[in-house]
């Protein structure tokens, strides 16, 4: 190990620049990857929180396509349906504060207080209680909303020129519910001046012993003009969107790989050329070809790993800064997540990159004819 470092220290500037090149690529990978990790986390949260819920949308798209109260009544009759929840989601902030949005915005959720536990019951309460049918201007707020507005039980949250008494606070979910202010549906409709027939998002809660997949097919068969999306379909859709995002991240990483990898190839070829005579000496002293290969591969891998560590560190610093400024300013929780698995992935990627880039130089070093190599200056 110290010997590899001594070899690398022979050309400090060149080795340093090569490591820097890899570090830039790894930096980009870390920052983008941390964002991707955040979305993956949200996805996981959503899947575990809503695994018993079927989403309902109009079968056709267009201006005339909308859900009606009669559809709600029909869906209620389907076998296996426990409850049909009309959820209205609207922004909490009356004025748009920022043009850019990172992560979910703060959202008012209008929900029937009698059924709130069916939909959100899987989220534990940090303090207080759920809203109930006797409540009027009351709210249960998400973890981030409580933090940002400095809310405790009994404090008031302002929305639509009214004050809503906080009766409960959700625990930290690392997901969308952190941004919620849950308010009784009729109060939301009244205060936001919406008609009573307004339907936002329809969530169908299935009975505990019913299979959501079966129930969603049943709904589509029995209720015309609606499309039922089972939890599995919702998850598949979200996963597909994740895949697109990951492809972009991977594209950036591949670009970094090509640039950083070529720099390593270049550096290692120059090192082999400079040390031709030395390779000849080592062969004369009885070094096997694989010993020479190992020596140069280790050096390339170490260059990759050092670049990886430097890039990861820089990426982590920038991610923390972004979390502290941009994400916090938008009232969000941490949007860049440098997770342990991302750290492992990024470091193995950087080291693997160095290894692959070292293959050709190492092979050409091992292939040198000792007689010729000893003659070179």
């Amino acid at each position, binding site marked *: 190990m110290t*010997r590899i470092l001594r*070899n690398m220290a022979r050309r400090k500037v060149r080795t340093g620049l090569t490591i820097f090149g890899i570090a830039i690529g790894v930096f980009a990978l870390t920052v983008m990857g941390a964002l991707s990790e955040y979305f993956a986390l949200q996805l996981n949260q959503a899947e575990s929180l809503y695994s018993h819920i079927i989403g309902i949308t109009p079968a056709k798209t267009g201006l005339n396509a909308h859900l009606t109260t009669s559809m709600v009544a029909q869906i209620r009759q389907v076998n296996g349906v426990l409850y049909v929840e009309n959820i209205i989601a609207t922004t909490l902030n009356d004025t748009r504060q920022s043009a850019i949005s990172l992560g979910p915005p703060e959202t008012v959720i209008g929900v029937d207080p009698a059924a709130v536990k069916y939909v959100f019951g899987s989220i534990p309460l940090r303090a207080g209680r759920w809203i109930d049918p006797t409540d009027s201007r009351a709210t249960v707020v998400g973890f981030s909303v409580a933090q940002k507005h400095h809310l405790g039980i009994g404090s008031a949250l302002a929305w639509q020129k009214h004050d809503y008494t906080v009766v409960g606070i959700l625990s930290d979910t690392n997901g969308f519910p952190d941004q919620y202010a849950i308010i009784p549906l009729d109060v939301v409709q009244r205060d936001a001046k919406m008609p009573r027939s307004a339907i936002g998002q329809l969530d169908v809660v299935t009975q505990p012993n019913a299979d959501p997949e079966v129930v969603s097919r049943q709904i589509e068969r029995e209720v015309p003009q609606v499309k039922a999306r089972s939890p599995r379909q919702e998850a598949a859709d979200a996963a597909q969107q994740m895949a697109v995002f990951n492809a972009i991240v991977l594209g950036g990483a591949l670009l970094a790989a090509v640039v950083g990898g070529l720099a390593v190839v270049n550096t290692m070829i120059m090192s082999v050329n400079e040390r031709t005579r030395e390779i000849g000496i*080592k062969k*004369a002293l*009885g070094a*096997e070809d694989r010993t020479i290969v190992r020596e140069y591969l280790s050096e390339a891998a170490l260059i990759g790993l050092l670049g990886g560590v430097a890039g990861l560190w820089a990426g982590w610093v920038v991610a923390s800064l972004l979390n502290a400024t941009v994400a916090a300013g938008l009232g969000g929780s941490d949007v860049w997540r440098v997770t342990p698995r991302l750290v492992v992935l990024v470091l193995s990627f950087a080291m693997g990159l160095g290894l692959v880039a070292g293959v050709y130089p190492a092979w050409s070093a091992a292939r040198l004819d000792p*007689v010729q190599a000893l003659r070179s200056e």
Partner: protein
Amino acid sequence: MGGEVIRALDGVNLRVRRGEFLSVMGRSGSGKSTLLNVISCLDRPTSGTILLDGVDVTRVSKSQLPRIRREKIGFIFQQFNLIPTLTAIENVMLPMEYAGLDERNRREKAMAALSAVDLADRMGHRPSELSGGQQQRVAIARALAPEPAVILADEPTGALDTHIAHAIIQLMRRFNHERGQTFIVVTHDPLVADQTDRVIRLVDGRVSSDELVGERKA
């Protein structure tokens, strides 16, 4: 290169006994280096056989050659050829590392060899911190430590002052006497050749003379 076949060595028939201290002389291009290269298995002759310690190395597979070099051959070069990033003792330990000796054994043998060449106090120095004569003594220690069958020295004094050159040859002589180590020294310096037991002269790839120094002087 053209179509002409150049024979660097032609019809050389040479028998070296264990424990001999022998020099090979000749002008540049006479085939000295080629002879050394084929004995050390760095190069292969197009025809003929080379028996090294009873093994015909021309018939050994290419992958076996590093092992033969490690076990049978020690090298001393004109330009010392120490690895610049390694300390004196690390340089001496290197061939034994290739031979798979454990760290403790290597270190013991290397320390003994460096003490034998009177460099016990320079073990931790890099080649750039040593004089030419000291570097060549490290190289001698490196060749001796694994106790090979034969030590090949290619112009070992070529890059040294006359009085240091003399000391280096004396050192090699001492190991030849004390340990019965076989030395083949390639040189164009008659003063060096005079200190060996037997002198082979090469001209155009052929042996032109082969005489014992004692006989010639007598």
